[in-house]
């Protein structure tokens, strides 16, 4: 659908934006589809996160009574998944396309299937399946039920009904759709190696591949993540982020009654920071199995406290209270 509209408005560059030929075209089609439906199209959050879920537009906005519909691309960093650019589909930095719909609309599954159509996956000839996958994020104190969505045997998305975030029950329930963009693009472009993806949809001398954009970064960051990331600094950063988060949370309460919070978002940034620093330390292999558990717990405590603070903000649906 999205593609047809593009074609009608601009005949010359249509093929460059064809989602089955162009990585960025796929992103545009996805954004257009969800924008048409009524989502706020956000830009990526400007911090390192492990998944689109960490974006405050999902984690925090999933909490509280207010309706919220948003979609965005989120660069996601998983330091441990780096393979020095040598594995065709494991990357330490990749893109997720994230959709959050609160309350989850009754036709959310149909919306999802139509979004696949919009990028050229036709359920008439493809086998699309919803396979059980319960989602849990120990660091965010969050869980939900849903599926992995399979297209001809390949997992192309995660579909989750949030039941709890930051230790708080989600009511109403938000539906979260997470598309692994590289995987999806590999599927529609018919390539087996992420680095071979056509990024800009050109086939001439202006063609840019995913590898042209990201291969060097994968090599450098893998080196960094596994071998050189400064662990002394990171341990320090973890402590600092944790302390800052707690400090902002403490200072943010408008009064002693804990009815209104004025700094939930900055505090949450520090929680995100701590989480990413932990992931880096984990990739460096300097955290033992038992310590690992306690670090996860510490981040979760921050996330929970941020959730509590968020629920005392306007965005979190708290009634206005005189300062």
């Amino acid at each position, binding site marked *: 659908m999205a593609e047809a509209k593009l074609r009608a408005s601009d005949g010359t560059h249509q093929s460059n934006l064809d989602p089955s030929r162009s990585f960025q075209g796929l992103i545009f089609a996805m954004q257009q589809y969800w924008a048409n439906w009524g989502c706020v199209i956000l830009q990526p959050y400007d911090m390192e996160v492990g998944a689109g879920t960490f974006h405050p537009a999902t984690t925090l906005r999933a909490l509280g009574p207010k309706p919220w519909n948003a979609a965005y691309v989120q660069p996601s960093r998983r330091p441990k998944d780096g393979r020095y650019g040598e594995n065709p589909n494991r990357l330490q930095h990749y893109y997720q396309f994230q959709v959050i719909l609160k309350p989850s609309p009754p036709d959310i599954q149909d919306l999802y299937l139509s979004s696949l159509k919009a990028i050229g996956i036709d359920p008439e000839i493809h086998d699309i399946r919803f396979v059980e996958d319960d989602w849990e994020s120990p660091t965010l104190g969050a869980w939900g*039920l849903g599926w992995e969505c399979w297209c*001809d045997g390949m997992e192309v998305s995660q579909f989750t009904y949030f039941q709890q975030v930051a230790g708080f029950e989600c009511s*109403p329930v938000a539906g979260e759709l997470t598309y692994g963009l590289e995987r999806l693009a590999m599927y529609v472009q018919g390539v087996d190696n992420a680095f071979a993806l056509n990024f800009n949809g050109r086939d001439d001398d202006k063609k840019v591949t995913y590898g042209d954009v990201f291969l060097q970064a994968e090599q450098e960051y893998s080196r960094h993540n596994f071998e050189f990331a400064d662990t002394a600094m990171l341990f320090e950063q973890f402590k600092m982020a944790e302390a800052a988060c707690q400090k902002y949370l403490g200072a943010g309460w408008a009064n002693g009654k804990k009815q209104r919070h004025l700094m939930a978002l900055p505090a949450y940034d520090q929680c995100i920071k701590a989480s990413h620093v932990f992931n880096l330390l984990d990739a460096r292999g300097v955290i033992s199995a038992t310590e690992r558990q306690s670090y996860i717990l510490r981040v979760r405590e921050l996330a929970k406290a941020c959730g509590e603070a968020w629920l005392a903000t306007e965005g979190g649906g708290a009634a206005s209270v005189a300062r």
Partner: protein
Amino acid sequence: MPDLLLEFLSEEIPARMQARAVEDLRKLITDRLVAAGLVYEGAKAFATPRRLALSVRGVPARQPDIKEEKKGPRVGAPDGAIAGFLKAARLKSIKEAKVQADKKGDFYLAVIDRRGRPAIDVIAEMIPEVAQTFPWPKSMRWGSGRFNWVRPLHSIVATFGPETEEPEIVRFEIDGIKSGDQTRGHRFMAPAPFTVRRFDDYVAKLENAKVVLDPARRADMILADAKNLAFAQGYELVEDEGLLAEVAGLVEWPVTLMGTFNETFLAIPGEVIRATIHNNQKCFVLRDTQTTKLINKFILVANEEAADGGKAIIAGNERVIRARLSDAKFFYETDLKMRLEDRLPKFNQIVFHEKLGTQADRITRIMALAGQLAPIVGADRVNAERAAQLCKADLLTEVVGEFPELQGLMGRYYAEAQNEDEEIARACEDHYKPKGPDDLVPADPVSVVVALADKIDTLAGFWVIDEKPTGSKDPYALRRAALGVIRIVVDNRLRLPLKKVFQKVIKKSSASNDLLAFFVDRLKVQLREQGARHDLVDAVFALEGQDDLLMIVQRVDALGKFLDSDDGKNLLAGYKRATNIIRIEEKKDKRHYTAAPDTKRYQLPEEKALADAIVVAKKEASSAVDKEDFAAAMRAMARLRPRVDAFFDEVTVNVDDKDLRENRLKLLNQIREATRAVADFSKIEG
């Protein structure tokens, strides 16, 4: 009589939950029907990925009328008692009650004359109740609702009526969803709503709408189609019941297709290919009918008849499987590049258990123990130690990281690849056995040694740090480990002095004794399950120093056979008689008669004869026990029987002569002592 049709249409229900949900739905509704006096003729429930359905045949149209009398308090009873009675009998005022007289005076009587309600009304109340409390293993909320279901619920069909008439809709509402008579077909192939009346047309219309309701039929269809596809090309399907059930729970309209992967992947061990294709892709693998080796084909089950005949679906699945097998091949080849022993240093960084050190510590302990056990088992010591050293190394390989269920097997392959002795390679796989009550027990000496060392080290470790299993909690599967040791020892007829072995690995004797007691308990459970009498087990355990599992088992066996014979039964009777007398007299006299009798005080020939027989029986039984011939020991005991019988026939124990009485009691005690050569008869019942 009317039939009930019920369908919950929802978003995709996890395959693993469907079978249980079918059972629960049928039971919850039919139990309530029966409780409401609506005794039905038959009920059957079904599940597809999107629906849970129930058909109940032959439900009475009305509940039976109920007439009952409820006796109340006496006339003039306190207000509280009267109020309670009114409430219980559902009366508005005491005037509605009758007054009747009995011997004690007048009392109230409520005559309850309840007309049965129409079944449809009762069912309309019942279904929401069942839905609200449905025992899904995990359920969720969605949108703005508060209702819990396994995944969002979209519509409910509920019709009720006799075969000859248009059925009625059972009217109710759950979280804003009104019951009706409309459902939908296959998500992609027939999404339009349609009306259903009763079970027969429901099933037929679903089938038209590309939905096979019965999971067993879907499984049969898949299996038949898969076998045919395989057969047509001269192959054979590698069947897998669990996978079949799962796949049948993932599709409403099974379409079985065959795909191919590159032959070069067949260089990977078959188990790895199978795990990759089964676990990750939920597809079946095929083997060559002649060689029984896997071939480069797989069977996939799609959920629809695709417009292009399945070309895109096959191509897509082939790509995913190619990628998965490439990963597997890469893992396998990477693994082969490193020798198992070179992986070991990494175990220094892996904590086995906070209080039990690293995996490396554990491997060192297992090696040491294997070295000690090797001579006992008759295994080559060098090979046993080598096997113990290498047996865990595959845990650090990529393939096992990906497919933990292949642990052991991969160790064997990698050991073979690096030309280890065959018995070392085999031990890498077999030392995990037996993994459960139905698993085979290792028989090869080196495998036996490593299997024992591994299990005993685990048990000893957790006993030392006092993390023993309690009640239903056994997170480290220690009961299974102990049972494994028992089966290995008994099946291989090994002489393993457990106490000595435990003392070597556990410093604290209390912990070591406690572990031995744990083994005794497990052995009891095991023997009992095999049909041995628990009292015989106790009778043998009550003897001192029983730590040799094989001897215990053989002794229990011999004792059981002995007690089944007449000699055994009579000797036991004589023993009981003797001990009863002693017990009573000892209590009376407040003293024990455990000292040896004085041979000079024997008066009657039967006394002397018994005393002599005891000496002989004791000697013979002990020497037979020393030779581990328990049957012979029992036979020696059996020879006591006529002497015991004769003693009781001819000799009076409680005579006036105090010294004589004492000596006779001491002689009786000798019977007790003698039998202890084979078992503690006091523990034997009957």
